[in-house]
């Protein structure tokens, strides 16, 4: 009796894999499809019926994308911009969060609200003056123009402050008695303890910047300054590249984010679930 019940239970459990696998196929299919196209030859890509599985592994499309497109240069631009934004946000947010978590000062709540209010102002509401300013300052087609507008973060400040608040105030008091200044306390005690939160902010800000579209589209005109997202889509729309080369380009662009996704999954998901407020 008992074994009978548990074995029907087991088959029922196995049945659940059918919807699971179907759902997984539907979700992965757009990515698989692009991977497939990236490995097709020039004639195969335009054949009907479409080839659903690559018959050979052609690396040529990838070298064409990197050299001809020139995706290598775009990739460099994107990674540099994302690193600048990431470092900028780590510095500004860890400093500001320190003030909010450890210093009791007048207008603290008001200033904290000011920081949070930046989360509610959509980027689109400020984009025209920002574009005009950056153009007037001569920062179009520069890395500073790409990175500066994103160097401060209300979300990151909030995230780090929450983490700092968990640090016992006794530590602060002990440090003060030892004659440890507040900057040294931040550097030697707070930041090492806050490493997980800093990691979350780093991964999150890198990914957000790397995947940006509208801002780099506005302020880069020079071929050599385009970011990957812009560079590849513009080449595609100008029909300068064959479909299979564009597909190879897409796969190359996805590599850094998939690396982050796999190796920093925890930090990334923590950042995204906390940062979803921003939309």
């Amino acid at each position: 009796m008992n074994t009978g019940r548990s074995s029907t239970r087991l088959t029922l459990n196995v049945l659940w894999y059918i919807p699971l696998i179907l759902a997984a196929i539907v979700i992965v299919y757009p990515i698989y499809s692009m991977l497939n196209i990236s490995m097709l030859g020039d004639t195969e890509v335009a054949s009907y019926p479409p080839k659903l599985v690559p018959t050979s592994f052609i690396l040529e499309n990838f070298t064409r994308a990197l050299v001809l497109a020139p995706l290598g240069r775009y990739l460099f631009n994107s990674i540099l911009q994302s690193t600048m934004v990431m470092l900028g946000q780590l510095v500004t947010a860890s400093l500001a969060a320190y003030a909010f978590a450890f210093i009791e000062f007048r207008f603290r709540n008001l200033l904290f609200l000011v920081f949070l209010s930046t989360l509610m102002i959509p980027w689109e509401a400020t984009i025209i003056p920002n574009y005009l300013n950056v153009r007037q300052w001569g920062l179009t087609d520069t890395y500073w123009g790409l990175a500066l507008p994103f160097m401060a973060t209300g979300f990151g400040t909030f995230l780090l402050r929450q983490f700092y608040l968990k640090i016992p105030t006794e530590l602060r008091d002990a440090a003060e008695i030892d004659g440890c200044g507040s900057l040294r306390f931040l550097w030697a005690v707070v930041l090492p303890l806050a490493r997980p939160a800093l990691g979350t902010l780093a991964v999150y800000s890198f990914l957000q910047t790397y995947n940006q579209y509208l801002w780099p589209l506005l302020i880069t005109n020079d071929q050599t300054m385009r970011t990957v997202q812009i560079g590849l889509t513009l080449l595609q729309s100008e029909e300068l590249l064959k479909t299979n080369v564009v597909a190879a380009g897409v796969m190359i662009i996805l590599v850094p984010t998939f690396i982050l996704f796999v190796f920093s999954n925890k930090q990334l998901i923590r950042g995204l679930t906390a940062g979803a407020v921003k939309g």
Partner: protein
Amino acid sequence: MAQQTSSIIPFYTRLGLTGRQWRGLRKFLTALAYLAPSLFFFLTFVFVPLLNSIKLSLYLTDPIGRPTAFVWFLQYERLFSQESFLNSLARSVQFVLYTVPVTLLVSLVLATLGNLRLKKIAIFRVIFSITIAVSGATASLMFLYLYHPNLGTLNYFLSLLGLPTVKWLISDQTALMSVSLVSVWLQIGLNTVILLAAMQGVPEELYESAMIDGATAWNKFFYITLPFLGSTFFFLLVVDMLASFQTFTPVSVMTKGGPIDSTNLLVYSIYREFYINGKYGFAAAQSIMLFLVMMILTIFQFLFVEKKVSYE
């Protein structure tokens, strides 16, 4: 001892401050120093530009974006008398209605599946959340090829099943739906991750006592899991609506607002008016309208969702 302290007059008393006031001021100035880098960037790239957007929207502008004549609300009057803006607004609302309910429903199904206690379920959880690593631009390129009328595999599959093919991005009847599908696919990852996290927060005892009472899987889902997800669902509803109203990339990559303006969503319309047509004031008025819509949604979230959270 007492003599010594009285002989040294702290310099702040010379400034007319008491010791307490001085310590307060010093703390304030220290804090300000820590906040200064952030405040500098916020002022330069958020607050001042926001005010400038409002200012621009009240002016006529020349082709390089300089305000020329103050015209009060003329740009706003133009907005609401112009077919193109009303179309964009309607299309954006339509887009939100297409994407948000489907995203939430699909993500709920995926999270429920991902929450099953099965072997290797972790692999499925990773797959269900994979789109959080995909950018709007690359997703748009993927779907652009899937939608290709002759060579795309979607129409090929339809024809294999003996179904009529779809014109996807080519027809103004189906283009907005096709763009919506990209948006749904992109948002599913984040939604599933958040719903899964919420589901894992349901106390185990609830399920155990339900099991003792002989509750079926459906009963457990409808009477324990779903009510528990209420606040998360409201949160995602607002987040998805905000993201949906801000959609730009798929439109820019796949349709450029066409065919016949059927996918000319608000943000794309703003971009086209100022960047391509050089109508800065007119575009600024549109961006302020978008700002107001999003403000209302955010306030709605604070009033409604936050209360829900504390209620639980």
